[in-house]
């Protein structure tokens, strides 16, 4: 029994009848598991993970949830505008971001053999921009432009732009370039080649990318108000600090319904776009 446990860590060796020794293949998995557990424990100590506090005061969390349960319907007229703003900001941001992204993504796909230095530097700048969370962008725009939906819309535009460009150029690079070359050989200009041979191939994917951006951006737009960049987030953080949980419950219910409806609609539309 004890021997079996030991052999988890080092391979068994067998002596065959002809005196030859055969070793099992070495399996690094147990060592990696121990290393992994050590890392998790180390990081838990570092971030002061405290399960007893969670168990002892965990019902505070559910107290907040329970206090939301009869939502305060009278709050609706106050938050109506903010809720609409959230959806509109997301729509506008996605439209602008994706509209700018479409031509740029053709420049950034390597199969058109454009300027290499421009391509690499622009891609690098894009991936740097992509690593910044949308809230930091929104906070920056709020500082520059002042409080309001403008800052949020700009932040969403920049964010959608980076996402859309990346998805588009990766898709364009996988396309069949035969039609493009055929049009090129007839002497068509580059714009006409793209419109005639590449655009029909990417149309569906572009629209579905746009819908994906719109859908995810509604969620991010909901938190942009935390930093004063417009939308429903201001209501969430405000009612939470004021401890008016009934109002918060209404905000969350309307957000859940909005997101579920949008998800259903965009999923349907995207399936249509991909198949038809």
């Amino acid at each position, binding site marked *: 029994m004890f021997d079996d446990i030991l052999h988890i860590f080092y391979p068994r060796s067998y002596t065959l009848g002809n005196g030859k020794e055969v070793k099992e293949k070495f399996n690094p998995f147990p060592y990696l598991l121990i290393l992994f557990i050590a890392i998790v424990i180390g990081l838990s100590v570092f971030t002061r993970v405290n399960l007893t506090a969670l168990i002892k005061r965990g019902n505070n969390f559910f107290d907040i949830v329970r206090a939301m349960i009869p939502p305060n319907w009278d709050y609706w007229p106050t938050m109506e505008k903010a809720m609409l703003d959230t959806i509109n900001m997301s729509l*506008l941001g996605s439209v602008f971001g994706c509209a700018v992204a479409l031509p740029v993504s053709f420049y950034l796909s390597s199969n058109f053999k454009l300027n290499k230095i421009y391509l690499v530097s622009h891609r690098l700048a894009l991936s740097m921009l992509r*690593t910044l*969370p949308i809230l930091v962008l929104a906070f920056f725009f709020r*500082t520059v432009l002042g409080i*309001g939906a403008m800052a949020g819309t700009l932040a969403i535009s920049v964010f959608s732009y980076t996402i859309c460009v990346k998805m588009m150029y990766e898709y364009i690079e996988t396309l069949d370039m035969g039609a493009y070359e055929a049009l090129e050989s007839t002497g068509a200009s580059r714009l006409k080649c793209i419109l005639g041979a590449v655009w029909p191939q990417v149309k569906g994917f572009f629209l579905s990318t746009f819908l994906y951006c719109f859908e995810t951006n509604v969620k991010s737009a909901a938190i942009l108000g935390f930093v004063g960049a417009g939308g429903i987030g201001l209501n969430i953080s405000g009612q939470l600090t004021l401890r008016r949980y009934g109002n918060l419950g209404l905000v969350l219910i309307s957000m859940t319904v909005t*997101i579920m409806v949008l998800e259903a609609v965009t999923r349907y539309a995207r399936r249509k776009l991909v198949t038809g």
Partner: protein
Amino acid sequence: MNTSLLEQQYKRYPKAWPQFVIGFVAIVAVIIIWNVTVSFGGFTERGWGMLALAFQGLVRPSWAVISDLGPTGLLMMLAETFAIGFLGTVFGTIIAIPLAFISSRNIAPRWVNIITLGFITIIRAFPSLMYGIMFVKTVGTGAFAGVLTMTIGSVGMLSKMMVESVEDIDPGIIESLDAAGCTGFQKVRYGIMPQLSSSIISNVLYRLDINVKNASVLGLVSAGGIGAQLIFAIQSRRWDDIGAMVWGLVILVLAIEYASTKIRNSLAAKS
């Protein structure tokens, strides 16, 4: 004869005008929504100058922040951000795997699936920063609240993705192991794990990417990470400090993204 054939072909050609009408309506709608939602009040005091200063900060980051090894230094803050994202992913995975199994159609009865899937949808619908505020009220400020927030966010997405791969399990393999007389453990080890492990690992790595990135804004609700210092720096317009923190964040996130994409691609190539 020839002309009529040509005309027939022209009639079969798809009409372009519906696209133009849709495009026109979409543009008008965007303009209307723009006027309803956004009021462009111009740049606040010296907005353009501030943009220039921000760029200057990126070019010339503050060395004081970078070389500071204390708790407010860049390295410690990045380490905390990474720790929050990593632990959130690990704990989230531990919760998400059983949840995904009981919400798959081929494992549990339908009414259980509907309850758990509804639970997952509700979790996913709320913004994660709101969980951040609620956890800060529950366990106090600090990185632990951040870990809990990231855990909940990961559970929502991971279990939704895992349900799809669990429902794709090929029952034939398990049946044949059954026929060979394998025990329950052996069926799980050799029948289920090889089918699931690569898709689960790639989903988890993808989530790790997202979590580390999102952990950098948790500081906004004082749930740990680099966010608090970053927001303070933007508020008080210390552009060189912002530059240092943004560079650190970019390098951390890009490194994790690079590693996780590499591993995921090699997993996809193997399976």
